């Protein structure tokens, strides 16, 4: 009796092991890295079996060009697209996605999305700065633009990031993202001469770039 169960287990356990390691794609990158020739780096990534997110049935999709513009305006509470926004959209249209497959993302699409977001954010920053009662601002209530980037503390910046994350990403930013954004703030400031850091434009430009980055991040241009 016991022997028969043992035999069953002897077959079952190795079979499970084979199934576990053989059929769940654990080996994909390993196999590609072994491809040998000096050209294998290019073959490696491009010979991935399938990267079309729609064919793969992934539960995420990319916003098309039209959806991207519409979404950015909506998320930024910009009711009317400025001429500059329309011009940038038309200029970048060929770089933006023609469909909803996530693998359509390429370098020009990312740069185009961020540039388009920058133009939308230009409207956002202008709208917010025009609201003198800072408690009525949607994103930049914590920001005193008049002091320049030098006057924006980490706490001020984090509050602005929190507002944009909730609006653009539908969630709070995580620690990784906050660290990256604060690092950008530091690098942004370091790239300016000391006397420029106190100028109003420097604060506007920091918020413009931060807004553009967050509004064109993957979580903002996908659904």
């Amino acid at each position, binding site marked *: 009796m016991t022997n028969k*169960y043992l035999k*069953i287990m002897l*077959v079952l356990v190795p079979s*499970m092991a084979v*199934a*576990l390691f*053989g059929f*769940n*794609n654990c080996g994909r*990158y390993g196999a590609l890295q072994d491809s040998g020739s*000096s*050209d294998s*780096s*290019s*073959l490696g*990534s*491009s*010979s*991935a*079996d*399938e*990267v*079309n*997110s729609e064919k793969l049935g*992934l*539960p995420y999709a990319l916003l098309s060009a039209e959806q991207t513009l519409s979404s950015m305006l909506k998320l930024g509470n910009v009711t009317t697209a400025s001429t*500059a926004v329309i011009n*940038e959209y038309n*200029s*970048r*249209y*060929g770089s933006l996605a*023609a469909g909803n*497959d*996530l*693998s359509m*993302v*390429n*370098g*020009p*699409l*990312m*740069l*185009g999305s*961020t*540039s388009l977001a*920058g133009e939308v954010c*230009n409207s956002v920053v202008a709208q917010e700065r025009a609201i003198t009662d800072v408690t009525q601002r949607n994103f930049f209530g914590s920001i005193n633009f008049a002091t320049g980037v030098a006057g924006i503390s980490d706490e001020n910046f984090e509050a602005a990031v929190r507002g944009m994350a909730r609006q653009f990403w539908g969630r709070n930013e995580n620690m990784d993202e906050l660290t*990256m954004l604060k*690092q950008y703030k530091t690098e*942004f400031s370091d*790239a300016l001469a000391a006397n420029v850091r106190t100028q109003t434009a420097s604060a506007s*430009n920091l918020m*413009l*770039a931060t807004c*553009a*980055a967050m509004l064109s*991040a*993957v*979580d903002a241009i996908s659904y």
Partner: protein
Amino acid sequence: MSKNKKDIPMWAKTGHAKPVTRRDFLSAGLIPFAANMFVPNWMSLLIGNNAFGQTTAADCPAPASLIPFVTVNLSGGAAMASNFVPMDAGRQPISSYNKLGLGDNKVPLETEFGNATFAANQVSKFLVGVRAQAMAATIANTTFIGIPCDSQNDTNTNKFDISGAITKAGLVGSNLPNMGRVNTRTGINQMAAVVSPPSPLVVNNYNSLLTSIGYSASLGTALNQNQKNSLAKLMSNLSDSQTRKLAAIQGGEGVKKVLDCAGIKNVDVVQKGSAIVDPRQNTAFAGVWGVNTNTNVGTRELIFGAMIYNTLIGQAGVSNLELGGYDYHDNTRTSGDTKDQDAGVVVGRILQSAAVLQKPVMVYVVSDGSVSSSESTARNAPWAGDRGSNGVAYLLYYDPSGRPATSDFQIGQFNDNQAADPTFVTGANPELTAAAVFANWCQANKRNDLFERVAGRILDTNQLAQVIKIA
């Protein structure tokens, strides 16, 4: 001791059901289910949520030393069998060319690019156009292969585009992706053969190419270069972080890598600045296309020249050019001749561009269907209607070190119906024609291993032997 097969089994004695066996598990799909369900969690327990790792530049496609590739699509159904004159299986003229606007089978011929047969006396306007732009020395270093292939008329559904396979084989740009001119998945009005290409950069005008590798508008003016560099780095990092959820889904790792690599490449691209895409920085090259700093950004020659420049220097992947207006059966020969010559001009400029830059290039010219004349003995009979059965694709290959050797100037043949012979492997199938082009490109690169790795067995060994003409 041998087992008595008539013994009552143990499980029956106990009153239980028959034990579940390995086969039962397999038939129920339990093992694959268990594999899919448990291993990711199990792996995470061991090595945490970073099990999928951060994509690095080393993981991204890197340019390989492969022959640049350009597709020229003549949208509408060009008379390609009346410029290059297709032969029969014995490489002799077919019985008549009177539906092809060339009269009887005594068509005056001249050979060019080695032994390829063209309608002489300037009847082949394509050849006239090529000769107008490419110097004799360039033509002397170019070979030509005609590929008869029946295709559908006036449609974008023929699977002639091979940019996906070429890209997958490793021809990727150092700074730009594959490019096209039309907002389709291939960048031209042809469907992908073998494998879909990555989404092309659609070059609507020169500015769209120029701005595609940098930040523009408000960001372009508000940020200094260091701030732009930092922004590109931030976007790359955010992308890597926000795509981790994809890696946790079966099949999502490849998609994550596509997104991550786009961001990683941008960090490098933004640092270099947009001037690197400008073909006018090379005076000789600019001269081939007749462009200068005053050329309007919407000028076709500037757009094509910029695309070809970036493809030839390896900065971009495959360039897919689109020429419209080839549905020219208007009962004249004039419109068709003008368009055919224009196609020749573009191809001639591409070849001459490669000569100026001392780079090899393969140019693949396709159309959707073709045209026919009424049956006529005239060698300039007007185009009367669509006729996809006499379609032909061209493959030109320039090498600065000398004309590439070929075993033939034609793949497949025409039959006496004045049509591509459908019994030949590529005769009635655009996708196999595209595969044959890919096979020749692999051969030209001396990398035949790439064919099976990318295209599998779409053409078997015997068929490959029939279609590979590059020596």
